[in-house]
């Protein structure tokens, strides 16, 4: 234990400091808009970290995680609307369904390599969107509206104020961050990295690559589904075009890549930067048609182009043990 703390003192200090900032910051905010931005940051951070397991650590770039996001959101929506079930339960139901779907889809999907995996996941997510759009039980295109004005509270996870949302979401961010940190240095994490670096050699040293890839896929599906559940409870209205568009799938990747793919806090940094840019450019430049997304896209290009290892590379100076960045890993492979 002591060794662990010593080895990670850097991380622990930074982690506690930023946690403190994250907890205290809302107390100085009086208007809801910045708080809304912070809530979105939490959602994207969870999604980014979830995707990071399969896309970052295992190197299997999925472009279809919107499917799991949607499943999570719908689990809460339908649970609340049709069964009056507490989101605290249904969010885990959503996680289980997502993991199940990932398990079923994972077997054929994970056999595919590189771009094929990306396209196949993309196609599956698109199918999912169309199916939800035409599925009457889940409301179809009309969506699920579970704004339940009568009983806000902890049971329904509906609040009139934004503060409880923020702190609940922050708790989840912290939990998943710690989970990532734990897996980062575990056997599991190293296996995944080995698979990413070279699947064949990983297989040859006795790693059951398909099993670990599947595990990572299921884990990431579950976490992303959790983000979907939380977002649904925040929005209180969902339809397939909100929770399952192609854009969400791409943004999940973007969050992670911008922050630093395959790192613990990369997705969080990416979520902060990306959400702030996106929300504030919209608020500032919305009077000119299209200008906000233009700026947004241009900033993404600049960041991804000049910092291919993510924003995290700005903060990383000298380290005793150098961990190979994904770029370096890819270069060594060549």
């Amino acid at each position, binding site marked *: 234990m002591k060794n662990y703390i010593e080895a990670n003192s850097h991380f622990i200090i930074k982690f506690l400091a930023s946690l403190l900032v994250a907890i205290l910051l809302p107390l100085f905010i*009086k*208007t*809801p*808009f*910045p708080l*809304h*931005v912070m809530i979105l940051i939490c959602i994207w951070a969870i999604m980014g970290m979830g995707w990071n397991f399969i896309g970052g650590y295992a190197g299997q770039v999925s472009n279809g995680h919107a499917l799991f996001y949607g499943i999570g959101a719908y689990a809460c929506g339908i649970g609340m609307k049709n069964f009056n079930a507490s989101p605290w339960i249904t969010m885990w139901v959503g996680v289980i369904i997502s993991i199940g779907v990932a398990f079923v889809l994972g077997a054929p999907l994970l056999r595919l390599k590189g771009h094929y995996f990306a396209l196949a996941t993309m196609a599956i997510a698109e199918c999912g969107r*169309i199916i939800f*759009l*035409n599925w009457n039980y889940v409301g*179809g*295109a*009309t*969506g699920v*509206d579970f*704004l339940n*004005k009568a009983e806000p509270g902890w049971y329904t996870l509906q609040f*009139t*104020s*934004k*503060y409880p949302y923020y702190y609940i979401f922050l708790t989840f961010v912290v939990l998943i961050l710690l989970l990532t940190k734990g897996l980062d240095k575990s056997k599991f994490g190293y296996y995944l990295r080995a698979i990413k670096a070279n699947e064949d050699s990983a297989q040859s040293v006795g790693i059951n690559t398909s099993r670990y890839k599947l595990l990572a896929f299921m884990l990431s599906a579950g976490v992303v589904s959790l983000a979907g559940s939380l977002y649904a409870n925040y*929005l*209180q*209205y969902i*339809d397939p*075009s*909100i929770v399952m*568009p192609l854009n969400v799938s791409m943004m999940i990747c973007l969050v992670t890549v911008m922050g630093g793919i395959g790192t613990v806090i990369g997705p969080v940094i990416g979520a902060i*930067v990306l959400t*702030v*840019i996106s*929300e*504030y*450019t*919209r*608020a*500032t430049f*919305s*009077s*000119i*048609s*299209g200008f*906000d*997304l233009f700026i947004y896209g241009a900033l993404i290009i600049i*960041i991804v182009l*000049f*910092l291919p290892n993510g*924003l995290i*590379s*700005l903060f990383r100076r000298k380290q005793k043990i150098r961990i190979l960045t994904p770029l370096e890993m890819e270069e060594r492979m060549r």
Partner: protein
Amino acid sequence: MNRKGKRIIRYLGISLFLIILAGGCAKDQELNQTDYSNNNKEPEINKEEETVKIGVLLPMSGAQSKAGQEVRAAMNMFVDIINENRNDIDIPLAQSEGLPNLGGKKIELVFGDLKSADTALSEAERLITSEGAVGICGLFSSANTKTAAVSTEKYGIPLMSEGTSPTLTEKGYQYFFRVFPDDTMYVEDSFKYLMELNETKQADIKTVAFISEDTEFGKNIANVEKKCAEKYGFEIVENITYSSNATNLISESLKLKKSDPDVVMMSSYISDVILYMKTFKQLNYKPKMIMGQRGGFMTSELFTALGEDAEGLCSTSAWSLDLQIPLVKQLGDLYKEEYSGGVEMIADVLKCSTDLYVLCLAINQAGSTDAEAIKEAMLNLEYPEEQLFIAGTGFEFNEVGQNTAATALICQIKDGKYRTVYPNSINAYEGLFPLPPWYEK
């Protein structure tokens, strides 16, 4: 990249980030410092404000932004009419500067972007809390209305929306108002028109087919259409749902051609309307009548994009330039000449800008910007019938926020203009039935 370059980029990046953040926050702080965290009470709107701010949500990017710009122009027209002394226009609030009952306070619009349904929630919230909007209106679809309503209901701010889905009024929103008819009324009128054609013109319409896009807009209309068709005794030969923004609509059109209904009822956005018409033409297929349910059929782009191919299309509507009311022509000309740069006023643009006008009326009648007072005024809105510029008898909102005095119209396109064919009382244009084939033999 070398270390130095990296460091420069880092500082540049961080400072840029902070500037954006500070910019965003500064904007929030200038405004009233009310703590919204405790939301059991109404947000206090700063009474010292010089102007009455109204939040307007419009699609600024994406396929609908052109329509958004037109709505914006029309809203500016109404704001000018209210804020300035326009003796030539005989509607309430025009003869005075600003809102007389609020000491001549002027109207100011604050705009937000309606990119997708989930941004509607945050943008509505931003307009209410950061910009101090006392009411929200804009170019909403039904789905956007639902998310925007989450915010407006929470803060107790009136929401004026022309999302036509009947589900909106069934939800029991407290502060939701709709000036123009909902889908049920539109669809009912479409079928009544068909019945009338059967009687007066021996049109012999028996079969109908529905084409609807697969989001909320199309799905709801398809449901209502199905009920109405059964009620009025028409046979449904095809009920097609398709993905909007599809890359091709061949199979939908082929299916339709195969079943050959007398009337095709379509609920589509403009992109799909263009593609359908082009595809029908390529297949040399023309039904006897194409009845659109607004959406893409009520846009000015229909004429520029389709030209002659748009002739004869019908659409339900709430307003038309050929209503026999002098005010309509006056407003239409004012809009065309001074605000839109030559584009004719169309129904959907007028609908959204009328929302704004009605909201201003209610605020004026209430004499306050308090939401309860506005709601009270809205429910008892007084409006002289001779000063109306819309079809119907006035503004009589019921408990769920629907204007019960509104009437639906049916328009047909003739010579690049919408001409009213139904109801008969308006009697503007006799209508063309059946449609001629694409190519003369």
